[in-house]
């Protein structure tokens, strides 16, 4: 499949890009890393009349800490986060644990975090992380700038709160406090393909009790999800020692949270090789594993994190 014909503009500033996107008659799309859009165009699933290539827009590749959050610009490539030092403290660890599951190195060198949020694939790792962390998506359109909370952003498979003509300039990921353990676990058929299920988890523990649990789910519904019910089941639970063995015992809070995520939070869609029954089972297993790993991560890093991060 060859690309269909399209017009192409390469603006150098955000206002120019927004201007270029403004005309609804041109069916414009933003081209950043192009790792999903170009494939969709070849497959006939996207047919923009105009591609607005933002790769030459200055400043969009910035990754910086501001006001308690990591601000990831629209051109920050996946691979930036392969180093846990790219963000302070547990957030850096979570992003580094996540990014290795995204495609493979050549794609990570080109594709962008914000592009994943724009594409909003149900199996997207970054979307699950954004939901788990209460990320804020910063949009700029002809009518000005606005911020949408991740919880309000995902409307379905490839459907979001972003309206035509809007450019995502950045995503803001809140930093995680030092008493937080993180994990990202993924189950897929080969290293090449989309996740059958993936889980992002962050556990904050105070005085031996889980003060806050954050769980993001990829490919557990027609859109990325946050496992609110499972999170609530964990609040106030004793953190306990790290779980020994392959899986938490059935009565353990982590195992219970897994079952709740599978039964109450997830809305699995049938796919070849993953019917809803199997997928619910995998969700329960993976949420349990992610929580165990987050707990182990916390134990491993307790006493090492300084407020403000461990960036050298």
């Amino acid at each position, binding site marked *: *499949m*060859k*690309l269909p014909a399209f017009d192409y503009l390469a603006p150098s500033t955000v206002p120019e890009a927004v201007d270029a996107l403004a005309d609804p008659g041109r069916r414009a799309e933003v081209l950043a890393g192009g790792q999903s859009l170009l494939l969709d165009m070849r497959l006939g699933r996207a047919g923009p009349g105009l591609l607005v290539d933002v790769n030459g827009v200055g400043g969009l590749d910035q990754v910086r800490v501001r006001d308690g959050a990591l601000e990831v610009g629209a051109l920050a490539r996946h691979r930036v986060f392969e180093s846990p030092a790219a963000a302070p403290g547990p957030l850096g660890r979570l992003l580094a644990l996540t990014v290795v599951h995204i495609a493979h190195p050549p794609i990570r060198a080109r594709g962008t975090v914000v592009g994943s949020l724009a594409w909003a694939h149900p199996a997207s790792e970054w979307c699950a992380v954004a939901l788990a962390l209460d990320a804020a998506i910063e949009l700029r359109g002809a009518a000005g700038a606005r911020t949408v909370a991740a919880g309000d952003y995902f409307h379905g498979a490839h459907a979001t709160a972003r309206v035509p003509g809007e450019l995502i300039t950045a995503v803001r990921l809140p930093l995680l406090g030092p008493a937080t353990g993180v994990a990202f676990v993924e189950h897929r*058929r080969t*290293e090449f393909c989309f996740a*059958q299920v993936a889980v992002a988890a962050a556990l904050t523990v105070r005085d031996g009790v889980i003060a806050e649990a954050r769980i993001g789910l990829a490919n557990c519904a027609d859109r990325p999800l946050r496992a609110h019910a499972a999170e609530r089941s964990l609040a106030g639970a004793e953190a306990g020692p790290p779980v020994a063995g392959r899986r938490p015992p059935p009565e353990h809070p982590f195992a219970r949270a897994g079952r709740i995520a599978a039964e109450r939070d997830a809305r699995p869609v049938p796919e070849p*090789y993953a019917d809803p029954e199997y997928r619910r089972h*995998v969700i329960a*297993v*993976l949420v349990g594993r992610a929580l165990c790993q987050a707990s182990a991560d916390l134990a491993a890093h307790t006493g090492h994190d300084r407020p403000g991060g461990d960036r050298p």
Partner: protein
Amino acid sequence: MPHGYARREDERLLTGRGRFVADIEAPGCLEAAFVRSAVAHGELREVTCAPALEAPGVLGAWSAADLPGLPSPGLPASGPPDEPVLLTTLTSAEAVAGREWPSLVTERVRYAGEAVAVVVGEDRYRAEDGAARVGVRVDPLPAMVTAAAALRGPALFDGLSNVALEGSAGAPIDEAVWRRAAVVVEACYRQQLLLPTPMECRAFLAVPRGQELTVWCSHQMPHRLRRELSGILGWPAGRIRVVAPDCGGAFGSKSATFPEYVVVAYLAAMLGRPVRWIEDRLESQLVATRGRGQDQRVRLAADADGRLLAYELTIDADVGAYPHLGAGLPMQTAKMATGPYTTPLVHATVRSVLTNTMMTYPYRGAGRPEAATALERTMEELARRLGMDPAELRRRNLIPPGRFPYDTPTGRRYDSGDYAAALALALRTLDYDRWRAERDRRRADPDAPPLGIGLSCYVERSGGEPGGLHEFGGVEACPDGTVVARCGSASTGQSHETTFSALVADTLGLDPALVRLIEGDTGEVADGMGSFASRTAQIGGAALRRAAETLVEQARLRAATLWELPVDQVLWSAGTLRPARGVAPTLGLGELVRATGPLRVDERCTSGMAFPFGTHAAVVEVDVDLGAVRVLRLVAVDDCGVALNPAAVHGQALGSAVQGIGQALYEGVPYDDDGAPLLPNGLLDYLLPTFAEVPPIEIASTSTPSPVTPLGAKGAGESGCIGTPAAVVNAVADALRVADPGLLRMPLTPDVVWRAARAPKAGDDR
């Protein structure tokens, strides 16, 4: 792999200097794109091509109705009567009669993606733009994508059965045998449809010039393509030249004369301009040939000591929409049903059932993986029922070396083998006892992920079927001292340039750098069969060896005449002639040619069928909570007789083992309810094993020369597709101790394994 080994073709291919069909420059060339039916089965009501002509750069668009003279591909490999017909003993004219595969759909669509129109444009982009504008209306009929559905469904061809072909091998087995046996294992298996997936999909370029047509095609059998195009187009073969340039892989999927080829050749001749068709990946996944496709039932009987008494294999093959070579292919499975064992009674029956999918066709292994996998899965289960070590069960039943040639109950004559030696080497290479101890340790530890060991002993067939067991080889001495070798084979990645140049050089005593191989060009090579059925080293190699030997004899005769000596007084060594006595100067080949004129020998060589064999062993670990299988180790011991180029054989063994892992664990084509393949994201949905999935693989070999092939060589290169799948599946079965072997249905995706892990366990341990 020998240290520092490099293939002669590597520098060209690895530095981007390979020349593929898409690279051939043909001034004024048009590109073709096909309009394909989204519906798998239905009546074609209307095709509207006119809108395509309004797209910029589109030069033409045609449906079948617009091209009344367009011929159909016709029967596979129908040659002139004096020319041996290739493999057609496996299929029959009756199977095809009334069920011809059209070049473009005329009345009824029978598989998703079947071509209903063709558009040519200045380039592929424009041709696709035009194709997108062609209107197609099909009234859908129920699609039947399984043999079971087609056996009870409406006729694909009015008035004709959906069973295209029935056959059997061996004699029916008396029911009393089953009643009296100590153990009878019964099971059902599925050999799923696979996509051969070469890196380069199909590619075809037709360049007309006056009364001649030159065809460039990524193809395994250029002479067959020329012969078939000649028959189909009604042109004398002498006016058609077929060239197969560098090829990005075939695995069996590039030997037919496909409808697209006929359309493109026809249009090129009609328009008087070059026309090219380069299939893309999505198109290939939709309409390139499929491999395998069998529903199998087995019964295996043994006495209490594990001696095999009888084996019965019943095959319903789903062969796709039109009977072609794939309809006869399940007979290969039937004939190889005996496997490497002394089972006295073996009976295999085949029904080739037409379905609404693209056709099956030989895919690396071609009928033998289906035979080996069914038998070896059943042997694993038999060992469990008997409480016997699976290695010991096999040892008791392998055909011993002293019984060759061995006539099987299913009509094969195995040429030679030491099957037990291959099994022993595999067990030793794997360190079988250590892994069994580890497996048992884990069985005692509820927290340890289960581990399993799987064995698979196989025997296969190489060279082809009677009537097709010959090949052309020619050697020519050039005035400059170099030598040109010509062979009727066509490399699709099998190192012919390296192996054959070395073979000819070795026969002549020359430096291999002085030998140049020409193949894959009907304008340069007088005759040829091609590369398929693991036949090229076995038969093409023999033809080249004989041609080189004959050339030496002719060179000696010429020198004898020149020197006025009896020929036995002329000696040959290291590419040089010299008199046996005296001090006369020596004479190189080039000098001889300069003195006496062109020297060229063409040979046609025939070989017997050979039967390579081996044992593969796999160790896997299963994450039972997710159903994920990790292959920890794979050992492949193969015996291909005399290996002409051990490094090339090693590479082939490795590649085919990875494809075997692909069948066992990853590859499959799901279909939706309307019969369309569910692969919306291409290779993100049809998963091949990638580097990350390839386990440590150890390749080892034994060498039992074949007495029926001139060089003692047997075919190599399909071994992994044949031997590996059952080894991997058996290892999973061993880890999970599943009572019903049919539950482990390939591909063993995590959901399948998870369900199998929760199913009832086999009662007894061993």
